[in-house]
């Protein structure tokens, strides 16, 4: 593997080939049709082939061209940020905007190295008030303020 000179190109190439192959495999079950009467599988297959070709060029080129290594991926920010957002999406309908907002703010704040629980809690309460005021009262979006599962 030491022959790979441009790891970023190599791995993006691999990724694109995989995506292209997946697109081809998935569109195999859609009818192809003819050029004059394109079926639902026609365009996706063109794209899949194009994707694989581009990925191959990238991957092969990475043995010749010099490039920077792929930077390290620090997992904590990714997991905490996306996790807290997914949680918000999952609970907002049943728990209401107020509680979900506080939960999102406190959870998301933990992604930072300078996490301060008390500050996050205060920010959460303030933002919950703001969110309810702006989105539910002001813009009349269809969101419950308080938990709905009590009845």
């Amino acid at each position: 593997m030491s022959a790979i000179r441009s790891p970023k190109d190599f791995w993006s190439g691999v990724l694109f080939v995989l995506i292209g192959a997946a697109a081809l495999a998935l569109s195999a079950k859609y009818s192809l049709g003819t050029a004059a009467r394109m079926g639902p599988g026609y365009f996706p297959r063109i794209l899949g082939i194009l994707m694989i070709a581009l990925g191959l060029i990238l991957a092969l080129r990475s043995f010749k061209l010099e490039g920077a290594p792929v930077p390290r991926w620090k997992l904590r920010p990714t997991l905490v940020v996306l996790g807290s957002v997914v949680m918000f999406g999952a609970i907002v309908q049943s728990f209401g905007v107020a509680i979900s907002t506080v939960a999102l703010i406190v959870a998301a704040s933990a992604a930072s190295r300078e996490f301060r629980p008390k500050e996050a809690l205060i920010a959460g309460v303030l933002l919950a008030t703001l969110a309810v005021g702006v989105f539910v009262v002001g813009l009349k979006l269809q969101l419950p303020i308080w938990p709905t599962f009590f009845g």
Partner: protein
Amino acid sequence: MDLLSHLALGFGVALTPVNLLYALVGALLGTLIGVLPGIGPVATIAMLLPTTYALEPVSALIMLAGIYYGAQYGGSTTSILMNMPGEAASVVTCLDGHQMARKGEAGAALTIAALGSFFAGTVATLLVAAVSTPLSSLALKFGPAEYFSLMVLGLIGAVVLAHGSLIKAIAMIVLGLLLGIVGTDVNSGVARFDFGIPELSDGIGVVVVAMGLFGFSEIILNLEMTEKRELITAKFKGFWLTKKQFQAAWPAVLRGTGLGSILGVLPGGGAMLSSFASYTIEKKIAKDPSQFGKGAIQGVAGPESANNAGAQTSFIPLLTLGIPENAVMAMMVGAMTIHNIQPGPQVMTSNPGLFWGLIASMWIGNLMLVVLNLPMIGIWIKLLTVPYRVLYPAILLFCAIGVYTVNNTSFDVMQTAFFGLIGVLFAKLECEPAPLLLGFVLGPMMEENLRRALLLSRGDPFVFMQRPISAGLLIAAVLLIILIGLPNIKRKREEAFQEA
């Protein structure tokens, strides 16, 4: 004259108290978010989209345009005061704007940015108004073959003029096209790439993609870095320019406006390209280029005017042809679709009030930014002193609410998180997300026009070369690729992006 009556109609719509209010609110909100570090115009529009749901389409569009200009303007403020571009188009403003601020000339830099932008905005608005009618009637003559070729040229242009690897950018477009056709095929009713998930049969929402790729992943990447910010808190010497500064700046404003107006219309052009090009030119023709990077006022005046002119004229292809030429315009397509407007040449004739009202409001929005922002600069500075650890959860919250309320489903939020993950992955691999978003928006249109063109030609692929306009567009696309492949130009292109 036609133009005048059109503009009169537009101002009649835009100057109603309600629409003025929305232009104002949009400009304010846009600046507010645009000032925040790491949130560019695409994410800003995606995030603030829900605030327009309840509005009439005209008011919603006017507000969105205001948001866009505000975001643009907010970016220059942070560049000058903090050496931190709020978005890509204001990267070059950092170079000299921040140096001016360090010399205690922050007020002058902000003023010339505002006045230059306003002047450029005025010229560009007139230009948009003047060319829209002829371009729209030309576009109405386009058949599917022409449209397909136009989209090919647009997409290729977008990657050629963007920076980074050409092949990666094209691959990102193709991926975008693939994502764009997820959902039920309009012709056969077959649900494609839906993985058996019923929600996916309606396709993926543009807000979901944009927010994930441009919003969430940006926040994550910011969190991975250590926070280093430098705010100029030194007292301003007032907002007025000295006579010498004014004399140095105004020719740069004129040049920037001209350059930006032209580059804004090109596929892939728009605010970012315009500001980069203007900076390069100002530096080239300056009597004393050594002053650049040390606080030359031309280095602020030129790019700031250019980026505003470009931001405005990039509406031309969208409004007349229905084709977005950069990621922000792709986002505008998404926003318009949510309000049930299909952008394209037919909008001008079927909904003239909306069309000309939007154009008039561009100018009003620019005026508001000048009037409002200089006095409000103190508030924006205060906002910037809030530490990022407090800001980002709040940004996340508004993103999450924004995504959730598009369809009121938690599935959209999960999808957005997924695109956030992909966004981080692509950032690690140095693949730009902007071409993906463009491809995503154009995917269904491209397939439809390809299908129709080939249906009409009975499957003969040479139809694209037999029709003169279509052939011309395709040849232009091929020339662009060849041109960019030439070693000489390739180096120049890399240099141009290196300078910033």
